């Protein structure tokens, strides 16, 4: 049957059979259904969910590059600048504009990196397995340990070499050679930096040199057409114009690293941002850092930047930080430390390190603080070699220059602890002040002898005299008596501010240890657990884990020896508490030492005054007076341990309350300590000075303290080594 019927004559209409009509209508109907489907789908994609696709498209074709914010400056209390940010032109490479070859090389490098990372991950898995299997072996053999070491090496982060430039990239090689001659770098070094930079932050310009010098920059600028792909971009560089000055507390800056990115303090900080790494730079990083701007660039599907540059979001400069530090005093104090150390070294003592704190006892403002040996934080502006870094950090037993000994030192204090023992004994009725104790060169408890330094015999002395001459036998006896009163010394130390965090505005403060019976029990437990876990005969936490807190331990603590561990800052807080109680009828303010004073806007106007909490402790005014009288006599009366150090000092104007200390260490030269309070009614000061392996307190630390005080009170700068050989 035909689809189209024969045409009937005289029919004016188009001849269409019913069957054809139905089928054409069906075809048209199918078309309508499909059109409807497509329209509905388009409506859904473009109108109902379009927003979401706009976002996806943006993610696709734009990349955000950070623009570093200028970091806030740091000033001393007078507004003198201590840390600045200098803007300089860095020499950068724009990979997309270089002659051919660099992308191939970068791809090769990335391939190598990926392979190395895979190998590392696999080694990590094998290492974990091996360690599990070793746990069951109590004494691994040498071969097993060697295997373990080699696995550890394989599982460590690999060093991946940049592959050589492709042979065909002659123009690129010539360019790097030319550039290297101008900025003083080997062509290979430039090449490596470019490839590594491209891998670390794709799309961004790669900085090959930050401090090229004006001459080189001028050459590059004038002959730009000879250096395709070489650009200059202003970058902000952190500068520490005073070098070693207070380097440990100021800290330094560096690009944020992997573990730091996960820290709460750095939430929202993007990789590549420069953040504070230590000290105040770290502690106040949130203020100093500012907010980076964003340069949004457009890329095509291959990830290559497209020429159009969109308007950037400008960075917000960081706030500046005003410190309580007194730049003049700080410089003089560091000079005094060096002089004291040199003097001790002249007498054959190693005197290799030390620390000092100068603090206003009323509110805890730190006027000067330092730790030696020092280092120049400007060194961190360039990458350090692992060896250089290791030298700065130090090795296990001895901390390097990076360590701030003033608040992280962990020392016994020697006799500078005696005023605390005295306060404890008086407050708790262990002794009465007039009672004569400590007669003879030594006292004997059970079978052990406890002697004065140099076997001196001060006869039976009262409290004031005992402090003045620093009688060890007196305080040994106090320690012996206090033992039966429980933990009076420990509690007093804590009350005054020792053995706990002071709350100073620095990141890595040491908590300290005031040893007592409970502490000993805990340490023994730790030691036994460790021995059990590691199958060793001793972990080194406690040598005799069965021993309990003894009267001998208490006697050592009474003279600031034994297992006492604290640092100059905690001692400064304790002496400040005593000084505050002394001047306020027994009400002692325990201050929070601090360095931050104000946060200012980048234009200098005040944004926020920093405040730090303090609390008050109540002491018997008479007891405080006795202790202060003792240490005043020690610093001012003939026969006092540091009286000769302060010879010629105007004691009526600026009375000195000072105590020497000499902490003994096993197989090492003694550690020199000096603590003092200078009772100037308008500008009181607490000084803490210690010199490792510096000898007696009076001969090294005390003269340094005097030099610092002289600077502060405008008295004669004079280094007078004391003659007292007391501990």
């Amino acid at each position: 049957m035909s689809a189209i019927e024969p045409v009937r004559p005289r029919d004016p209409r188009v001849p269409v059979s019913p069957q054809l009509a139905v089928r054409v209508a069906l075809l048209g109907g199918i078309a309508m259904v499909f059109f409807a489907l497509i329209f509905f789908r388009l409506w859904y994609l473009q109108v109902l969910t379009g927003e979401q696709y706009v976002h996806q498209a943006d993610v696709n074709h734009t990349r955000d590059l950070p623009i570093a914010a200028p970091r806030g400056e740091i000033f001393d209390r007078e507004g003198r600048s201590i840390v600045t940010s200098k803007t300089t032109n860095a020499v950068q490479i724009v990979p997309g504009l270089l002659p051919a070859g660099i992308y191939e090389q970068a791809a090769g490098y990335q391939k190598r990196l990926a392979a190395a990372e895979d190998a590392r991950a696999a080694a990590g898995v094998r290492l974990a397995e091996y360690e599990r299997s070793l746990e069951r072996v109590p004494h691994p053999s040498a071969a097993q340990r060697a295997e373990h070491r080699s696995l550890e090496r394989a599982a460590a982060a690999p060093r991946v070499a940049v592959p050589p430039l492709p042979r065909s990239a002659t123009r690129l090689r010539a360019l790097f050679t030319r550039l290297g001659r101008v900025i003083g770098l080997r062509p290979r070094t430039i090449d490596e930096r470019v490839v590594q930079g491209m891998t670390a932050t794709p799309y961004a310009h790669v900085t090959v040199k930050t401090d090229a010098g004006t001459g080189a920059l001028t050459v590059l600028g004038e002959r730009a057409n000879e250096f395709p792909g070489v650009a200059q971009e202003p970058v902000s560089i952190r500068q520490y114009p005073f070098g070693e000055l207070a380097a440990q507390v100021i800290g330094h800056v560096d690009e944020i690293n992997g573990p730091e990115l996960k820290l709460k303090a750095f939430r929202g900080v993007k990789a590549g941002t420069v953040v504070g790494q230590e000290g105040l730079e770290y502690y106040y990083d949130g203020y100093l850092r500012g907010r980076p701007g964003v340069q949004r660039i457009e890329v095509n599907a291959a990830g290559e930047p497209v020429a159009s540059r969109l308007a950037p979001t400008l960075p917000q400069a960081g706030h500046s930080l005003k410190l309580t530090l007194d730049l003049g005093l700080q410089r003089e104090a560091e000079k005094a430390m060096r002089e004291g150390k040199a003097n001790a070294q002249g007498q054959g003592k190693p005197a290799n390190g030390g620390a000092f704190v100068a603090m206003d006892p009323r509110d805890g403002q730190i006027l000067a603080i330092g730790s030696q040996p020092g280092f120049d934080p400007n060194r961190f502006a360039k990458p350090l070699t692992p060896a250089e870094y290791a030298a700065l950090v130090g090795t296990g037993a001895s901390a390097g220059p990076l360590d701030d000994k003033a608040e992280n030192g962990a020392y016994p204090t020697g006799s500078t602890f005696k005023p605390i023992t005295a306060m404890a004994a008086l407050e708790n009725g262990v002794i009465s002040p007039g009672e004569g104790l400590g007669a003879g060169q030594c006292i004997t408890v059970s079978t052990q002898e406890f002697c004065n330094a140099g076997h001196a015999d001060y006869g039976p002395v009262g409290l004031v005299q005992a402090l003045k001459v620093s009688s060890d036998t007196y305080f040994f006896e106090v320690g012996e008596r206090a033992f039966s009163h429980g933990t009076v010394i420990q509690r007093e130390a804590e009350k005054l501010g020792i053995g706990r965090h002071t709350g100073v505005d620095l990141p890595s403060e040491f908590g300290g240890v005031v040893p007592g019976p409970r502490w000993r029990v805990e340490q023994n437990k730790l030691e036994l657990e460790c021995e059990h876990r590691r199958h060793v005969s001793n972990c080194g936490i406690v040598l005799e884990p069965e021993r309990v807190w003894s009267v001998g331990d208490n006697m050592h603590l009474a003279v600031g020896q034994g297992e006492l561990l604290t640092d100059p800052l905690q001692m400064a807080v304790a002496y400040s508490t005593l000084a505050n109680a002394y001047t306020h009828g027994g009400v002692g303010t325990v201050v929070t030492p601090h360095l931050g004073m104000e946060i200012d806007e980048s234009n200098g106007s005040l944004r926020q005054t920093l405040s730090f909490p303090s609390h008050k402790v109540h002491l018997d005014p008479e007891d405080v007076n006795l202790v202060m009288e003792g240490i005043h006599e020690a610093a001012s009366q003939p026969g006092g341990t540091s009286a000769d150090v302060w010879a010629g000092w105007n004691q009526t104007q600026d009375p000195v309350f000072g105590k020497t200390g000499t902490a003994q260490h096993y197989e090492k030269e003694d550690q020199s300590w000096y603590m003092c309070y200078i009772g100037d009614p308008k500008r009181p000061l607490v000084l803490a000075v210690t010199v490792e392996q510096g000898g007696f307190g009076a001969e090294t630390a005390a003269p340094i303290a005097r030099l610092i005080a002289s600077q502060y009170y405008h008295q004669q700068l004079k280094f007078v080594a004391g003659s007292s050989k007391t501990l």
Partner: protein
Amino acid sequence: MSPLSPITAPDTRAADAAAARGPRSAPFDPLLALAVAGLGVCSVLTLKSATRNLIPGSPDYYVQRQALYLGLGFVAMLALSRLDYSRLRHYMSLVYGALIFSILAVLAIGHSAKGATRAISFPLFSFQASELGKILLVLALAAFMVERARHVSERDTTIRVVLAALIPAMLVIAQPDLGSGLVYMVISYVLLFIAGTSWKQLAAIAALVAVAATFVLVAAPAAGVHVLKPYQSERLTAFLHPSSNPKKVGYQQLESKIAIGAGQKTGRSGAPQTSLNFVPEDQTDFIFAAVGEKYGFLGAGLVLLLFGLLISRTLRILVMSKDLFGSLIAAGIAGMLMFQVFVNVGMTIGIMPITGVTLPLVSYGGSSVITTMLAVGLLQSIYVQARASAALKGRVLRD
């Protein structure tokens, strides 16, 4: 609805006179021409944005060439519309022979692009035989069915038509050009459908196709025999789960959807998805993504409306044709256009598999543009002949 014109003696002079009178006397179907011209303009505008970064240094390469193809095609369309298509019926064997020969020639001497051998290179252009083959197949099958008009319901006829389409379809699928092969099959099916093949036989063919598709896509690969290239069957099934492997097969479709979605109601200035080449082949198979991104729902809707006009005019011409041959040619062309538009647009919006068919007249490419223009030329010829014949018989044709 037009009023009936007075009936006069049917003579050619009257017909000529009628053709020369008033707006109805246009030498071709103006609405069809409008749809074609509109789509051509859309093509050029979209290519201008979508291809500006495709060849560094010559942002207008594609635009200029496409304009040239459209111009050439328009001339070819006009020329063809002046011919009487019905004469082509006598060259059936020649046309079919040319179809098979050109496809074999491509397989023998064609040049390869992107893993497929689909075109023969000539000094100034390359010729994609499978595109022109669509028209040749329509003509040959239509002529064959007119010959068998009295036996159209016979199973023998149906089998011969199916075979006649399957041979070239298999040959182009081997190139591999799956899209054109499917177009060939659709053309033959629509021809059978319009010619009046019984529902039973149509249903049987549909069932056979379903069984074959299952075999090719599921059973044979499971048995280790790959009738299609793996990428082809992956593409055919990827649209069912586009995000399962966005980096490979699903990538193109996902990026295409992002581009179209981001166009929102009125389009996105700059059209970054397509102009920065995130959507591969956005000048050819995926040009609708570029339309959707650059001009939004309004622009995409306009293009669809133009296609709606094109297809509705084709169906109208099918009905008004003076003879069965013309109707069947129009039917084949309608099937070709509908399949290509729906499959192409459907794949860019994620509701159809990726099969590599072009969007007629809008996708960049000389073979595709000129083939479509020739098809439109045939439609115009059918229209002109139908009007002339009607005038001759004293009837009035509704447009």
